[in-house]
């Protein structure tokens, strides 16, 4: 397979994992996170440090990455989730900037130069790259999708849906807003951490600016475009926004403008996303089928 396609495939896969995490926070639990890239970064840096400074293999550092990203998510989530919607947006933006600044200025993390020389992931002695790495990413993606799907089937997912719809009413049926918002937040950030670890071992070189606010915006855009609150939305969004820049490569100078325009159009015309409730896909499907239990 063309290595160019494999590269794009890897990016889409990694982004899908990270955005699936964002989906749990924003799509399922109805919270805002505009700082998701910070956790992507925390996962990446943790993996990078464990690999380069502690010499740990990816497989051993993976659970550590998940735990550390989850704990930091918990610590940041605690104050954030008690504030009002728009406060939350600004707080998560702030978290992103602060985490990025932290990685940029604390010498342990390599400062502006970042961390390089991150080894490839080895599977029973074979270093993974190219197609084999893509396979690895796909395996993690399948796991992420499964967790996403299971979440919607579990009581905790239902609790998050009620929080999303009406937090006060949810409390009156016994759903603790802090507990379930935190749960969603930690799950989402942990997934971002996993994506970050994969990213670090793929790029083999990371720096703070890979995890800045524009990346968070891109992730949220993927979620919005693909469809919030759906299991496949993150993949669709990652694919669309991953492939588009390549499609528009000849128009490279206009790429950002096209991205901004696309994002603006989608959010303005289909705030639920392409796969969302009033989105393009569902309304075409509705036009084909009459009735169906959720139509009335």
């Amino acid at each position, binding site marked *: 397979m063309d290595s160019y396609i494999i590269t794009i495939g890897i990016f889409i896969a990694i982004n899908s994992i990270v955005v699936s995490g964002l989906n749990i926070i924003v799509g399922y639990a109805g919270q805002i996170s505009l700082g998701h890239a910070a956790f992507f970064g925390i996962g990446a840096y943790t993996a990078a440090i464990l690999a380069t400074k502690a010499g740990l293999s990816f497989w051993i550092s993976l659970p550590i990455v998940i735990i550390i990203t989850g704990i930091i998510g918990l610590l940041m989530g605690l104050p954030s989730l008690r504030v*009002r919607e*728009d*406060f939350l947006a600004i*707080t998560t933006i702030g978290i992103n900037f*602060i985490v990025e600044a932290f990685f*940029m200025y604390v010498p342990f993390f390599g400062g502006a130069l970042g961390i390089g020389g991150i080894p490839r992931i080895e599977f029973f002695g074979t270093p993974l790259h190219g197609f084999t790495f893509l396979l690895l990413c796909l395996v993690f993606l399948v796991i992420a999708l499964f967790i996403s799907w299971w979440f919607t089937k579990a009581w905790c997912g239902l609790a998050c849906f009620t929080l999303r719809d009406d937090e006060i009413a949810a409390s009156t049926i016994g759903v603790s807003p802090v507990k379930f918002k935190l749960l969603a937040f930690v799950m989402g950030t942990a997934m971002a951490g996993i994506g970050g670890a994969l990213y670090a071992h793929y790029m083999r070189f990371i720096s703070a600016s890979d995890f800045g606010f524009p990346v968070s915006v891109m992730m*949220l855009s993927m979620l919005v475009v693909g469809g919030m609150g759906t299991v496949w939305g993150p993949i669709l969004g990652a694919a669309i926004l991953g492939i588009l820049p390549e499609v528009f490569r000849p128009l490279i100078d206009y790429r*950002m403008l096209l991205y901004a325009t696309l994002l603006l159009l989608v*959010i303005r015309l289909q705030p639920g996303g392409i796969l969302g409730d009033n989105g393009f896909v569902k309304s075409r499907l509705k036009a084909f089928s009459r009735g169906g239990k959720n139509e009335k």
Partner: protein
Amino acid sequence: MDLFIEQLMNGLAIGAIYALITSGLSLIYGILRILHVAHAGIYTIGAYVGLSVYSITGNLLFAILASMAVCSVFGILVERIVYSPLLKFPAYVPLIASIALLLGIEEVMRLIAGPQIHGFPVSLPISTIKVANISLSSALVMVYIVSIVIFFVLWIITSKTDLGLAMRAVSQDMSIASAMGINSKQIVSLTFAIGSSVAAIAGILVGIYFNQVYPTMGAVPAYKTLALIVVGGLGSVPGAILASLLLGIAETLLIGYANIPFPRDALAFVAMILVLMIRPEGLLGNIRKKI
């Protein structure tokens, strides 16, 4: 000591400019409760329009007025076309639209004017003023004078006029204000016009003071000003101004003068997180946090 005072004056000027941008943002947040990140885009447009008109006419006052006009119109268009239809959705929807808009504006400016930094050379009557032992550039004095005038005008409008009263009514409760006979839609548009004009002025001042106009000049202010309206207290324009002045001074003195190795642009966010933890209603805030 003289250096300290010079830096203090500098910090105050930067703070004043932040305050100009943030006060418009605060008015807009107060009235629609949206995070109008694209406000920084309008500020950028203001700088470019001001520069262009000045280059053509050589008349600074005219450039300022033209810029204010263009930005007001643009602000109203943004409000009508982008934000109003999205008000019924959760807060992140208009926020994403705003972010996309800011990005779009940056790109359009880059495509039209080029990515390079343009200077804004203005020939002012006096080039430096010396007070005691300190030399103040006329650009700095201009920043002070213009900001004070604008803040004064804003104060008059919001607290002494019927328009200000209507604005406060609409920001408290739009449907009740409408029921009382206030044309809420018009008031919202007017607020955007006022906020955008002030942003335009801020853009021009920045262009002159730093002699720099470039497409991404709004990127950092966009989010810093968000942090500032939180620190000042959501909905409070005086709070926004106070927070901005304090930040300007803190950034310049702490980092510029005292050389503390801390990223300057992150200071605003650290302040914001502290405020959220210790005093969520902000310095002078008057909107109560939801339980």
